């Protein structure tokens, strides 16, 4: 077992946020890291050495989500200040801003990079909504189309293959395929028993991994939402990602705030866990965070990974040779 991974690899610690990290993302090329937190300024960093490129200034509240377009030219952020903003990556300038009725929980560019999807929270008077915008228009003005989600609110959402539909994870554990343009739910599956905290696509978009409050992460196909693998842990899973290089799945999580009684800052409880994709067995843990891990991601080349925690720290790891040679019998 490679249980001492973190002794060999020394992580680069990105200290840029004053509050808990909400999401960490790479651009497609893997040279930039995007981080957002419960403070209003998302940051962009060089993955090579951890130097900060800059922050995006404009939001007035916690930033829940961030996405980078496939050509790395534009960045999309969604915030609790009831707005989503489009930024120019190179200059950090805000080029577009749309106001929503409630906090923006997820956001994402479609495959072509011409549309942006947003999902908003269910709050007083406003139902959870999915909004699609054509970002080629300037100003974007009204959403090209929108869809209300009547029952359980969306807690995580990504575009499906070829952006024909959205794949949404809900608070009650439901997983749906939503065709927003046709205003219908194509398919619903209930694989999880608790809220789905994160959904991450595999590099080719054919399958994805879900991270849930029910202590499991699951591997599911994008076309028919068929459950294929389940990874079990002892804690709620906040985020998960699939390695683009090896048959490994990375899970990050932690206990709920209200369950923190005596275990408190018990060292070692907040680890990033590695599972074998096919055998569903945990084979390694990497410690380091002082609080639950909220977001994880492999580097696009699979040679490292990044984790963002409740403690406000973002840790960038590079795998050493042992990781690439490691095989299950």
């Amino acid at each position: 077992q490679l249980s001492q991974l973190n002794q060999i690899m020394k992580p680069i610690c990105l200290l840029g946020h004053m509050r808990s990290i909400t999401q960490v993302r790479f651009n497609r090329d893997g040279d930039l890291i995007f981080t957002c937190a419960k403070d209003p300024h998302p940051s962009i960093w060089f993955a090579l050495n951890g130097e900060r490129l800059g922050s995006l200034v404009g939001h007035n509240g916690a930033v829940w989500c961030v996405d980078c377009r496939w050509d790395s030219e534009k960045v999309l952020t969604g915030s609790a200040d009831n707005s989503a903003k489009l930024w120019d990556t190179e200059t950090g300038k805000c080029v577009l801003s749309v106001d929503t009725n409630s906090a923006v929980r997820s956001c994402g560019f479609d495959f072509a990079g011409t549309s942006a999807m947003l999902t908003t929270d269910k709050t007083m008077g406003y139902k959870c909504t999915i909004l699609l915008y054509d970002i080629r228009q300037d100003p974007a003005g009204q959403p090209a189309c929108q869809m209300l989600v009547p029952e359980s609110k969306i807690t995580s959402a990504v575009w499906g293959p070829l952006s024909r539909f959205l794949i949404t994870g809900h608070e009650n554990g439901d997983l749906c395929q939503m065709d927003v343009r046709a205003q219908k739910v194509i398919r619903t599956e209930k694989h999880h028993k608790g809220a789905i905290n994160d959904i991450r696509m595999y590099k080719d978009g054919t399958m994805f991994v879900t991270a849930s409050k029910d202590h499991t992460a699951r591997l599911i196909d994008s076309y028919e939402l068929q459950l294929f693998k389940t990874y079990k842990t002892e804690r709620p899973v906040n985020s998960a990602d699939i390695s683009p290089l090896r048959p490994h799945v990375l899970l990050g999580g932690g206990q709920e705030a209200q369950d923190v009684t005596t275990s408190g800052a018990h060292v070692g409880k907040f680890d990033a866990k590695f599972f074998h994709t096919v055998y569903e067995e945990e084979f390694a843990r990497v410690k380091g965070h002082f609080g639950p891990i909220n977001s994880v991601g492999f580097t696009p080349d699979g040679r490292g990974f990044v984790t963002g925690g409740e403690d406000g720290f973002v840790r960038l790891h590079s795998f050493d040779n042992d990781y690439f040679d490691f095989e299950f019998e």
Partner: protein
Amino acid sequence: ARLELLGDILAEKPQEKKAINNALVLSGLPIVDSARIERLQVFIRDKFLDKHGEVVKFSMPTDENGNSLGFALCCFQTDQQALDALTDIQGASLDKMHTLNVFKFSDFNRLADADDEWKPPEKAPFVDRGDLRSWLREDRCHDQFGVLHTAGSVATIYWHWPGDPQPVDSATRNNWTESRLHWSPLGTYLATYHTKGIALWGGEKFEQINRFQHKNVQIIDFSPCERYLVTFSPSVTKEDPHAIKMFEVDTGKMKRSFLHEQAAKWPVFKWSHKGEFFARVQTGKALQVFETPSFSLLDKKSISVQDVQDLSWSPTDNILAYWIAETDNQPARVILMTMPEKREVATKMLFNVADCRMHWHPQGNYLCVRVNRYTKKKLDADNTPKYINIYTNFEVFRMREKNIPVEKIEVTDAVSCFTWEPHGSKFAMVQGIASKGLSVVFYQVNAHDIEKVKVLEKRNVNTISWSPIGQHVVLAGLRSANGGLEFIDTSDMKTTANQEHFGATDIEWDPTGRYVVTTVSFWHVKVDNASHVYSSHGTLLYKLNKLERICQFAWRPRPPTLLSDEQIKNIKKNMKTYSRRFEKEDLQSSTRASKELLEKRARLKTEYEKWRAKLLEKFRGEKQKRLELRGVDTDELDSNAQDFVEETLEFPIKVERIRIDKLPQVAE
């Protein structure tokens, strides 16, 4: 208008009571002539009735000559009083030839209407329960354990194959029990709780053996022989006021039931080791010893003992130990009495006693009575005694020696967790108070004295758990004490391992003494619910953490070995030959296991590759669309290498600071 008023009033007319629940019929009385009838009536009322309440009506019918007919009728003021009396005096003896037979008047009609002709009862069809001991015949003598998980909604029974426990076929059931799992003492049955009562399961497939009705049953107890089941439910009604019921396990019949008023520790009724007797204390008054299978009082009467506080049976002999509180003119006493002879075999007077607790050695070799004594005693405002300067004495009765000698140990510190070593002669306890540091102290009972063999200081321990076969012990700090586990081999008092299961709430040895399991139960802590399995020396073998929200982990008990002491001695002598055989078998099974594992993995891999192949087919089919959407091929990271832009970034690798004191002179 008057007719309507009448209707209301009519509704209020008192109704005749259909059942007369406050009346009893006493039969079995002697037949006396008119001269002595008055005396008999007074005797009956004095001895049996008045103490249970107010007798509002009493009648002893006579024949035409004034002789009694052998029975009497009495009415109490309340139904409850009648019931109390019934339970208490039923079966009581008046004299050598007469025994009271009491029944409710409301039952009278039922009995009177019984058929005159006796019909033999229908033969119950024979139900083959199968082999209830099948689990003991497993090839490699593996034990079973039960786990209640998923917050109590699923229960699974496993075979404990070390490292890879396997669920027993058809023994994973949803909502199998509504509160907890309870194994019978010899492991034959699994008891589950339900609103309607208890169900017992057993046999190879855990089929239902029997059901016992007791609404809202809260807690149960088995007799050590497993022949009887005792249940308690706080839900009592007027029709069924008995909170404690006793059932015969084989037939499912209720044999007896009891009222229960005063607060007490469970079990209220304590069983003798073979299940021949069960007894309870009527605090301050008497010992009630019942015998089976009649379920009536031994010799038809209670044993009157003034100020008796508590009783306890020897685990291996029919000896009952009980203690009597001290009174103003009598010291406290501990008395050991054999049953059914009721012969006193040992007595110990104790002075200045505040409280006593009895701890039997599991093999009945010793009885240790922990006596809390005081130096001064005051009486509170309401006459409750208040004890000052409490210290503890341990009185150890050597049960196997002639005349049962008693030896004393004194401890000045506060004491908790007293435990005997099973199959050994040591005992251990935690001494001290948490703020000053707790110590664990071990004593050895030798032929002529009791020696303090080891003091382990500064141990945050609140549970001492001995292996069921003795010698090994685990000192644990459960619940709020951070889950520290110290494994000790008491043959040389060396610590074999120190482990930690943070937040552990329970600890249990398997019945063979090979494994120790610590559990973090969902009932106490909502996260990290898992069970950890250690060897007897403290090596962590594996963790049971794939089951969610584990509430309870319970080993299945084993019946005692059928081997004689002689046979066991022989086996230990020839251990080497046995070891060789078992090691060979172990080796074979471990390679077998890894072969199975490899096969399983190969299977999973092929399945996965098939699944991925299908998905990749779809992916390739969509390639054209992808090119259209983005204008370039982005399927791989280097698909559009021709578009790559080379960028040179400069980062300082090293920064050196050189101090220049003097600038070079500039030539004029």
